[in-house]
């Protein structure tokens, strides 16, 4: 059935509970193909919400809500993620509507599902630890291309516990771990006092000697003002903003779909900070 859908841009694959990927796909639009053993299906997603699903369960083709409930009943599935453009999204939506596979997020939610008892991935389901049946690894990405579920017993995963489980993205990056690593790396530089990741006026993650949460609203105001420059001349994308004051510097730079705010003393080496900023992978590398 997926043959009739736009292929999109393949951005990676992983093993995870399906609900986990939705939680981390707030800005994603596209198609997620789902495989569980010999069975497979797909979920079309817009901004973290399912829009349509099908799932081939043996001889039976499940559609819409039935398919979705079936998919989220698996503790872990193989996911193949394809990003769509706006046009592809429209084409896929038309196909979903014509095939009766629509699943509206406004329909009553299924709520947390218990793990399926009939599912066996590999080995002795429910008994062996996850790292024996899945690709094991540490919290820090070490093997690009692999996906690691870190929980002790993947077979015991429910949708709720899955939300707390770290999963390494196909590029080898776990965005949460990456954020912590990056912030700590910056904080180790001489002169860096505090670092925060922020978006929409709120601090997402903040570390350092100075409390930055109350500064991010001002940082966002500066950022929005700076972006206005692009309305009066050709500038290209925003790279960074540095405010120098006698006591130090405030640096604002893009970080995936959010921004970094870095507070430093005057003696900071800006070259080192810019080097780290340049090392931040493009958002697409991490599937966002």
């Amino acid at each position, binding site marked *: 059935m997926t043959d009739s859908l736009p292929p999109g841009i393949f951005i990676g694959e992983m093993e995870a509970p399906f609900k986990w990927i939705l939680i981390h796909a707030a800005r994603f639009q596209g198609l997620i193909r789902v495989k569980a053993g010999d069975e497979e299906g797909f979920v079309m997603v817009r901004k973290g919400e399912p829009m349509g699903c099908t799932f081939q369960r043996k001889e039976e083709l499940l559609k819409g809500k039935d398919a979705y409930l079936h998919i989220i009943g698996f503790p872990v599935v193989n996911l193949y993620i394809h990003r769509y453009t706006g046009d592809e999204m429209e084409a896929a939506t038309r196909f979903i509507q014509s095939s009766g596979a629509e699943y509206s997020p406004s329909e009553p939610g299924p709520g947390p599902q218990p793990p399926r008892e009939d599912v066996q991935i590999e080995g002795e389901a429910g008994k062996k630890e996850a790292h024996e049946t899945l690709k094991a690894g540490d919290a820090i990405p070490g093997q690009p291309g692999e996906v690691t579920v870190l929980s002790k017993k993947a077979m015991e995963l429910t949708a709720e516990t899955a939300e707390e489980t770290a999963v390494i993205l196909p590029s080898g990056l776990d965005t949460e771990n990456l954020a912590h690593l990056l912030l700590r790396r910056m904080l180790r530089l001489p002169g860096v006092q505090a670092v925060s990741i922020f978006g929409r006026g709120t601090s997402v993650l903040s570390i350092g000697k100075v409390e930055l949460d109350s500064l991010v609203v001002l940082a966002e*105001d500066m950022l929005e003002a700076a972006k206005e420059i692009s309305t*009066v001349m050709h500038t290209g994308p925003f790279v960074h903003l540095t405010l120098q004051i006698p006591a130090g510097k405030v640096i604002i730079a893009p970080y995936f779909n959010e921004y970094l705010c870095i507070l430093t003393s005057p003696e900071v080496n800006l070259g080192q900070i810019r080097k780290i900023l340049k090392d931040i992978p493009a958002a697409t590398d991490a599937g966002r």
Partner: protein
Amino acid sequence: MPKNELKRLFSLDGVRMAIIIDPEGGVSEEMGAENIEGDQLAAVVSFVMAESRAMATRLGEEQISMVFVEFRDMALLSIPLDGGFFLLLITHPTANVGQISYELKKNQDLIGSLL
């Protein structure tokens, strides 16, 4: 008016435009880049400087030393002058920002005193 000083900054490698912005957000002096609408740019940059000043105040500082905004295709350096004026330089992205900001700060007091 500090035309000579502005000309000196404008002649630095990588500088595309030099503007002095008055406290009302208008152009006081302008040099270079004919394809850039100086008045509109001055108004927008005034807004950036105002927001930057708010941040500086929040951090317990009354003074901004410099604001540097980098885009892929260009960069802006702005420093405050006396009397609420600003000096703005627009540079190529590959310009030597270290050297330009040094020259900018070196001429800051002189330009300010001539306004």
